[in-house]
C-alpha cells in the first residue's frame, strides 16, 4: 500500500537511476546468497578499489555524453598517462608528484585540443576522438613498445598502503581519489553554471546558443574535463599496476560508455545523472566479481556471460522504464496522429 502511494511521487527522470540501483542491489544480494564471503563490506569496498580508474574515466565520459558528444580516446589516454608516469619516474628520475601534475596537464590539453577541433571545424566527435585514440595509442608505442615498471618511492607508498575505515574495511588511496572526483563532478554538474551549460547544450545546441550560453567554451570544457579524468584514471591505473604499457586499458572506452548508459544517461545528451554512472560502474564491477567467485569459467564463457548479463540488464531497464513512462504520462509519450498510424 505504501509503495503504491510512494511511487507516483518519483520523478520520471529519476526512474532509470532508481532501476539501476534496484538491479545493483539485486545482483549483489544474489552474489551474497550464492557465494560464501561475498556479502561482506570488504567485497563492496573492493568494487571501488578494483574499479577506481574506470569510475574516474566514466565520470569524464558522463560530461561528454551529457553534452551530446562522445569520447573514444579515453582508453588510449589512460595508457598514455600510465606510460608517461613510468617514463617520468623510472627513466627521467623526476619526483612522483611533479610527474603526476605534468600528466594531468597533458591529458587536459589533449582533451581540450580535441574539443577545439570538434567545435571549431565541426568534425563529428566520434571521428575526432577516434583520431585522438589512434594518436594517444601511437604515442605510447613510440615512447616504448615494451612495458616499463614504475620504481618510485612516492608511487610505491601510495599504491601499497591501505586506509582503514571503521568496521575493519580497508580501501586504497585510488578508491578515495575516485570518490572525491565523484563528489566534485556532482557539485559541478548540479550546482555550477558550467553544469547547467552542459545539460543545456546536450538538450539542444541551437537553443543553448540562442539563450546566449557560451557554447564554444563549454564544448571545449567537457572534452578537457574528459581528458583530465582520463589522465587521472591513468595515474590511478599506474598506482594499481605500478607499470606503464601501450597495451593497457585497451577497450576501456567501451566499458566507460557502457557504465554511463547502464546508469540511465541518454547518448543523445541532456538527460542523466553522474550518480547513475557510479551505479553503472558498480554493476559492471559486481558482474566481474561474480564471475571471479564462480572461478571455473573458460575465458570465452566469461565474455559470453558478461554480454548476456549486459543484455539482461539493459533490456530490463528498458522494459521497466517504458512501462513506467507509459503509465505516468500516456499523452506525452507520443502525439496522437490524425490519421490511423501505420503499423510499424
Amino acid at each position, binding site marked *: 500500500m505504501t509503495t503504491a502511494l510512494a511511487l507516483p511521487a518519483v520523478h520520471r527522470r529519476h526512474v532509470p537511476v532508481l532501476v539501476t540501483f534496484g538491479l545493483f542491489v539485486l545482483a549483489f544480494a544474489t552474489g551474497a546468497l550464492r557465494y560464501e564471503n561475498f556479502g561482506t563490506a570488504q567485497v563492496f569496498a573492493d568494487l571501488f578499489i578494483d574499479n577506481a580508474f574506470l569510475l574516474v574515466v566514466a565520470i569524464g565520459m558522463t560530461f561528454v555524453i551529457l553534452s551530446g558528444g562522445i569520447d573514444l580516446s579515453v582508453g588510449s589516454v589512460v595508457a598514455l598517462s600510465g606510460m608517461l608516469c613510468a617514463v617520468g619516474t623510472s627513466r627521467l628520475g623526476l619526483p612522483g608528484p611533479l610527474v603526476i601534475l605534468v600528466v594531468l596537464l597533458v591529458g587536459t590539453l589533449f582533451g581540450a585540443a580535441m574539443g577545439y577541433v570538434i567545435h571549431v571545424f565541426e568534425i563529428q566527435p566520434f571521428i575526432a576522438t577516434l583520431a585522438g585514440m589512434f594518436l594517444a595509442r601511437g604515442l605510447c608505442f613510440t615512447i616504448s613498445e615494451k612495458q616499463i615498471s614504475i620504481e618510485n618511492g612516492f608511487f610505491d607508498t601510495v599504491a601499497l598502503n591501505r586506509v582503514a575505515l571503521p568496521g575493519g574495511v580497508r580501501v586504497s588511496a585510488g578508491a578515495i581519489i575516485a570518490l572525491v572526483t565523484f563528489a566534485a563532478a556532482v557539485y559541478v554538474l548540479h550546482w555550477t553554471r558550467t553544469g547547467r551549460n552542459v545539460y543545456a547544450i546536450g538538450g539542444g545546441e541551437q537553443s543553448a546558443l540562442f539563450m546566449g550560453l557560451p557554447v564554444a567554451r563549454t564544448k571545449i570544457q567537457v572534452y578537457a574535463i574528459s581528458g583530465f579524468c582520463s589522465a587521472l584514471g591513468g595515474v590511478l591505473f599506474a598506482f594499481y599496476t605500478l607499470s606503464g604499457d601501450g597495451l593497457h586499458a585497451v577497450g576501456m572506452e567501451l566499458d566507460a560508455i557502457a557504465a554511463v548508459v547502464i546508469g540511465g544517461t541518454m547518448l543523445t545528451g541532456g538527460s542523466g545523472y553522474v550518480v547513475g554512472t557510479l551505479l553503472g560502474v558498480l554493476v559492471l564491477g559486481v558482474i566481474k566479481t561474480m564471475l571471479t567467485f564462480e572461478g571455473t569459467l573458460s575465458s570465452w564463457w566469461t565474455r559470453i556471460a558478461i554480454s548476456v548479463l*549486459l543484455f539482461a540488464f539493459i533490456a530490463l531497464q528498458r522494459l521497466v522504464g517504458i512501462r513506467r513512462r507509459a503509465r505516468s504520462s500516456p499523452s506525452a509519450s507520443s502525439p496522437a496522429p490524425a490519421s490511423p*498510424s501505420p503499423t510499424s
Partner: protein
Amino acid sequence: MNPVNAVSRANLARLTRHRLFWPVAVLVLLLVVNAVVTPGFLAIRVRDGHLYGSLIDILRFGAPLIMVSLGMTMVIATGGIDLSVGSVVAISGAMACYLISEGQGLAVALALSFGLCLVLGLWNGLLVTRLSIQPIIATLILMVGGRGIAQLITGGQIITIDRDSGYREIGGGHLAGLPVAVLIVLASVAAAAVLARRTALGLLLESVGGNAEASRLVGIRASGLIVLGYVFCAVCAGVAGWMISSDVSAADGNNAGLWIELDAILAVVLGGTALTGGRFSIAGTVVGALIIQTLNTTIYTAGIPPRTTLVFEAAVVTFVCLLQSPAFRAKVGRRRPGGPVPPPTDPPSADKKVEVPA
C-alpha cells in the same frame, strides 16, 4: 580578372564542392606518393594468366574492409552504427572453418555460416527497433559476446583447414585474371548500388535516417528497414569473414577482424557519409576503404617504422576530415587573399535531428 579565368574558377569551385572530390584527391595523392617512393608501384604484370601488382594487392587485401564498410554504410544511413562487425567476421570464419574441418561440404558450411550471420543481424536489428536500445550499446553486446561465441566454436584454438579444399578460392583464388575476393566485392557493390539507387530502397533508407518518426508517419515501415540494414551489414561482415579466414586457411576467434569496425566506420566517414544518418554514398565508402588500405600499404612500402604507424594514421585521418569540413575550408579560404571564398554550406551539425519521444 578575365572572363575565361572566372569560368574556369567557377568550374574548379564546383568540382571541389563535389562530395567525392576530397576523398578521391587524397587517394590519388597517396598513390602518387607511393609511385614516387616505390619504382614500379603502378605496374601491373600478367603471370600465369593472373594479374599481379601493388594496385591489385591493395584491392585484394582491401576486399574484406570494403565488404564490411559497405554493410556499415547502410546501417549508418539509417542513423545507427554497428560495432559488432568484427565479432561477426570472427564468428562466420570460425563457423565455416569448423564445419569444413569436420568434413562437411563447402556448400553446407557456407550456407550454415550465412544463416548464422542472418540471425546475428536480426538480433542486432530487433534490439534496436523492438527494445529501442541505442545502436552503439545494442551492438556492443554482440561485440563483446561475439568474440566469446567465435572462441566457443573454435574451442579456444585456431582451426586450420586443408589448403586443397575449395574454401581457399574465396580469399586466395583467381578467376578471369582477377582475385575472386575482388570479384565478390565488385558484384556486391554493384548489387547494393542497383538496389539502393535504381529502386526506392536507398531513398527510404535515407528518409529513415533523416527522421525515423516522420518516416513512420508518412507510411514507411521504418523498423523493418532498420532491421534490413543490420541484417545486410551482418551478412557483408560474414562474407568478409570468409575472405579473411580462407586467405590464411585458418580461423582465429580472437584476432580475426579485430578493430575492423573502427576502420569500417572511418571508411564510411572518409567517404562523406555523416554519422547522423540520412544521405549516404556507396562510391564514397569504397574510396574511403581504399584510402585506408592504401595507407596501410604505404606504411609498409615507405619504410615508416611500425611503432609510429598509429601516429601516422591519426595524422592522415585528421587531415582528411579537416579537408572535408566546410568550416575548415571556409577559414583557410578566407585567409588566402583573392582566393574564392566558398559559400557557407550547411554544416552537418545545423540539421540537428528533431527529438521525438520514443
